[in-house]
């Protein structure tokens, strides 16, 4: 995108978007339930255990997975550790400022974290090598590099795609009880593969996958993480507006109807391959 990105939308443009929506049209010609083109590429970073680059229209996100051995949390001695981090870097948009993570970075990371955790995307119970002592810590780092709206869904796809293609060193325990990291790498133990679907409320309209301009005029947004069995494994409402109960259910039905198509963009799960 070469045109200047606004942080505040000019009033005439806002009016145009709203009046078009009243006629059932979106600024970029999409239907209300239509995603922009979704592309998922994996294995884009050699030094990462797994990685993915995802684009939804002009929005681009890179996610990488790194694994290291560490001690477990005291309250979950028999489980590995999942750590999701996201950083809205100034490269991605003029609205992102340099500095420590703010509430937007933290919200993005925590919603993705909940979706992954609730659906057991990583089978953390299989990542305890010596329960109480040595477990795998899996870091999922998410970096939007170009922001044209809907970072949530793009980040979710990138995180899950990176995890599905991650390989970690095989670890054996020697006779004297030491951990030995072998050359051989094995896939991460994967449970489910959730997808994140975000719906924006603009006036009376509900539209899926809002682009940046739509985010500037939207009243509120709601994100659903949907697992393979059509369970909702995370919800997050954002924005200054509100939803009626009917709108929440309509948005959920929209999310459920779009989840399979979005999931089809993901690489196969390592457990599906045999």
């Amino acid at each position: 995108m070469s045109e200047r990105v606004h942080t505040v939308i000019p009033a005439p443009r806002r009016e145009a978007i709203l009046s078009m929506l009243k006629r059932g049209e979106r600024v970029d010609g999409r239907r209300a339930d239509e995603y922009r083109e979704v592309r998922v590429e994996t294995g884009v970073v050699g030094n990462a255990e797994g990685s993915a680059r995802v684009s939804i229209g002009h929005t681009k996100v890179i996610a990488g997975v790194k694994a290291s051995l560490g001690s477990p949390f005291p309250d979950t001695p028999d489980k590995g550790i999942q750590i999701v981090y996201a950083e809205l870097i100034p490269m991605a948009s003029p609205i992102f400022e340099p500095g420590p993570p703010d509430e937007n970075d933290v919200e993005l990371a925590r919603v993705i974290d909940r979706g992954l955790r609730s659906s057991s995307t990583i089978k953390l119970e299989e990542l305890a090598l010596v329960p109480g002592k040595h477990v795998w810590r899996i870091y999922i780092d998410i970096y939007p590099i170009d922001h044209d709206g809907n970072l949530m869904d793009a980040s979710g796809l990138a995180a899950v795609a990176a995890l599905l293609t991650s390989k970690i060193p095989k670890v054996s325990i020697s006779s004297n009880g030491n951990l030995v990291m072998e050359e051989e790498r094995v896939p991460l133990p994967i449970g489910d593969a959730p997808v994140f679907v975000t719906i924006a409320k603009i006036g009376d309209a509900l539209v899926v996958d809002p682009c940046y301009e739509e985010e500037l005029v939207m009243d509120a947004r709601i994100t659903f993480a949907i697992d393979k069995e059509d369970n909702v494994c995370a919800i997050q409402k954002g924005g200054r507006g509100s939803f009626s109960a009917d709108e929440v259910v309509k948005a959920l039905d929209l999310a459920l109807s779009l989840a399979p198509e979005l999931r089809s963009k993901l690489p196969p799960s390592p457990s599906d391959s045999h």
Partner: protein
Amino acid sequence: MGGAEGIKLLDEEGRRLDGRALNELRKCRIEAGVLKNANGSAYIELGRNKILVAVYGPREVHPRHEALPDRMLLRCKYSMLPFSVPDRKNPAPSRREVELSKVIREALEPAIFLEEYPRTTVDVYIEVIEADGSTRVASITAASVALADAGIPMRDLVAGVSVGKIEGKLAIDINGIEDQYGEGDMPIAMMPRLGEITLIQADGRFTRDEVVQALQMAREAIAKLYEEQKRALKEKYSRILEEVEGSEVMR
């Protein structure tokens, strides 16, 4: 989420650990106008939760460049006191508190006529004194009373409740143990009179029909909290009235 291997959260009769039915709120008491310095304040006890909210403003925005030309800037800070939880909480803001401050602010904003006070700010300070599950929604319930107490023009109050999933069943207003060992948590806040949802989050696993049912259960519980909110506000003004009448008698 401890899953099935944890504690038994429901007995044979379907009662919860603290004896409540699935659709039963904990005892809730709200008091308005509890702090002298704040423009508005409220205190809520919901079961063992104890939360104080102070509202300052509308006042000048500092730093000035954060002021908005077309509306009030609402700022919100949710924090847990170090001794509010079993293991001491580090007083520095956690990532959880940063996120909750944001979603609580966005749960309150729909109720406030922000455009009536451009270039000003209202600060909402939430301090959790003791925590036992569902603190974010209890904070919202108290914060909207504190905003009303400060005289901020609002469309409606906002009240919130969490719907949890314990042993496969939906339960209203989950406490700390139910949150820790249950299968899911769905905090919901609404403007009760308008029926609009201003906060909804979830973790755990819910089917579509469970989401629909949770919305209905939340609505019923929120109607009860709304009555307590209104009672607290009315009580504050009858207290003032008594004081005024008392001082007239003195004269």
